[in-house]
């Protein structure tokens, strides 16, 4: 029972750093941009937040700066795909390379160090160690309905979705597709970087090269799983959080299964999720996704 409770507790904790980038990608894809650079953004967020939090001894400053860096980095991507009409997948991968490399440069000095982590608190008084989270976990789960509200209940959300479906029609309706896409990319950049930051200064309190371990790509799969719906993204993030925690727990139990095989669990699960939910997304996936918009003549 105790084992079960700690599994649930850990699931929620590990879902948060996935939920941030997933929500960011939902918004970005709803505006018609596929960003494969999430992994790089997360790594940047993790390394920057760690470095800043190490220097200032304040984890919140780290998270804040990480968010700003994520925003700026993703604006490179947005500029490439919106203004230079670059291939979205290639631009995303370039961003991924950028993030992997730059985070390694930034983090070099901090390998093996400990930085201050975000303060944790419990929503209700109970057993000592379970269900104690930092504020970002609560933020993540509140952000999902907020994103949903933004997309489906506000004028801006309507315009953003219109841009994702057809930039030309949105333009005819008086919306600037470029501006909307920049805003979407900026939001996604902040969210992805905060997701990475949460991993570094929220959960582990350490930095290691490539520490996000493909979470950026798992997030993209989760967007498909969630059918571009922020509320369903919660389910997806919890599913993967539970897989990560289960794998950690099984390793701790020492069942004699190779840790490498257990590590495969989330990736295999992702591929399976794609297999089951990745099909028949017509009229669900934004119609202009991945297409270059050359503007109206």
């Amino acid at each position, binding site marked *: 029972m105790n084992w079960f409770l700690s599994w649930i507790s850990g699931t929620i904790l590990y879902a948060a750093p996935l939920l941030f980038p997933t929500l960011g990608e939902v918004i970005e894809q709803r505006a018609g941009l596929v960003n494969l650079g999430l992994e790089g953004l997360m790594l940047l967020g993790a390394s920057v937040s760690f470095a800043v939090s190490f220097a200032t001894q304040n984890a919140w400053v780290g998270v804040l700066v990480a968010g700003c860096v994520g925003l700026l980095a993703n604006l490179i991507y947005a500029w490439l795909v919106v203004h230079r009409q670059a291939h979205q997948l290639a631009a995303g991968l370039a961003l991924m390379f950028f993030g992997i490399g730059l985070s390694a440069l930034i983090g070099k000095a901090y390998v093996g160090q400990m930085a201050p982590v975000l303060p944790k608190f419990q929503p209700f008084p109970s057993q000592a160690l379970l269900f104690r989270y930092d504020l970002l976990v609560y933020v993540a789960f509140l952000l999902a309905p907020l994103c949903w509200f933004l997309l489906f*209940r506000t*004028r801006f959300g309507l315009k953003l*979705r219109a841009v994702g*479906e057809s930039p*030309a029609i949105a333009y005819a309706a008086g919306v600037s597709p470029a501006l909307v896409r920049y805003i979407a990319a900026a939001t996604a950049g902040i969210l992805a970087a905060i997701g990475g930051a949460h991993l570094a200064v929220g959960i582990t309190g350490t930095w290691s090269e490539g520490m996000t371990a493909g979470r950026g790509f798992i997030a993209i799969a989760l967007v498909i799983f969630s059918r571009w719906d922020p509320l369903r993204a919660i389910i997806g993030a919890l599913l993967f959080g539970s897989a990560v925690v289960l794998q950690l727990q099984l390793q701790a139990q020492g069942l004699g299964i190779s840790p490498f095989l257990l590590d495969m669990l989330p990736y295999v699960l992702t591929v399976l999720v794609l297999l089951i939910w990745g099909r028949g997304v*017509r*009229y669900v996936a934004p*119609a202009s996704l991945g297409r270059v918009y050359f503007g109206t003549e």
Partner: protein
Amino acid sequence: MDEDRLTCESDKTVVCLRGITKRFPGVLANDHVDFQLQSGEIHALLGENGAGKSTLVKILYGFYHADAGEILVHGRPVHIRSPRDARALGLGMVFQGFTLIPAMTVAENVALFQAELPRFFSPRELEQSIRAASDQYGLALDPKAPVWQLSIGEQQRVELLKLLLAGARILIFDEPTKVLVPHEVEALFRVFESLRAQGFSIIFITHKLREALSCADRITVMRQGRVVGTLLARAATEESLLHMMFGEKLPEITRSPGSRAPGEVVLELRDVCTRPVGTAPALDHVNLKVRAGEIVGIAGVSGNGQRELGDVVLGLLRIVRGKKFFLGQDATSWSPRQLVRRGIAFVPEDPLSMAVVPGFSTLENFALMDLQAFSKFLGTVMNWGKVRTFFREGFTKLGLSPLPEPVRASTLSGGNLQRLTLVRELSRPYHLVVGLYPTRGLDVRSANAVRQAFLVAREQGKGVLLISEDLQELFSLCDRVLVIFRGRIVGEFRPEEADLTEVGRLMTGAGVLHGS
């Protein structure tokens, strides 16, 4: 002319165009056109294709800028530089291609174009207001329905609703009936009348004079960029309008029966059923025979299983029940490759997406016709000399001048692409040619080249299956015309005996007796 001036400044005139001239490279599209729209009237702009109707309304809507002339709205001279300016003046235009987002609901599509949409909105209130507006104008739309589920007629009404809620008082329709079936046309005209009763002014473009006569208050006829005249619909007759549209010579719809009797059955579908794919209808017990030396037409409103029928013939769509025979052999489960090899040619609409590789040269595209025949040594070496010979011969045989060989397909015009496709498909040994809307979107000359090639194919004793929306085309080319509706063949006609209204009824399902 003095009379015109008077009406232009009168209170009843909402739009007045004076001396509008617009020249495109090589064409004088509008030549000193004068036009007045009165308050609360339905005004038909009638003329043949290319008479300059579309250009005129696009100038009014700010899409084009006139080289000369002036526009007055409510008696005041205005400069309309963009559609935005036009909308600010209370004009609204429904285009031939709709600007709707299929994945969104009616309410969302309408809301997107509403200037005063609140920052935060409740979908329920939005839907209520849209339902109210829809009822007010008799549009009968469900605000919650996603647009992709709507019929073309309903989509057109969504476009209209968008304009009405954005405050348009002067409505322009560019060939609104072109995409509609007869009963939808009637419904649209009822909407026009209800709008007129509420004080809206309407311009609609058409080239069908019966529509103009049945619905409009006044009719302006255009020919070769000029206004021939404006008359009251009550005072007009078919003969007078025809005379104004075409001058002295009337075009004839000629039928050209084949010179010899149809021969062996080339293709036969026997009770063929398929599974539905997405929103497209499944074929439902389709029976069909195409004989050698015969053109069989498939009439129907787009999206009733025509594409699926073509795919079944080409072996791209699996047959779940029934049989397909090609040249007397059971071909039900043949692969597309086998069918193509045995002799099926295919001429689609929009060759750039369905027939040619955009990045290939014309010659490379031609070589795709039969790569095996054009290569040697297990496919490791291409015999380009042979390709070139066949390429030139193919064009000559169809009486066309060969296209340049090294040109990329993506740079060719639609007509030339279709010529390339036609030559490639008809150069190989074939027994059946399938045309899937082969003349859609083509210029008149290219379309005629396609039609001519099909007639030649018939003369040579080939079977032709022609899927088209253009009833005139079908009835002038075909030996038999079948009507398809929701994946079922609902009627068969010989062109000489056909009654077009009956065909129209069948196409829309009105004539199906045992409706499911």
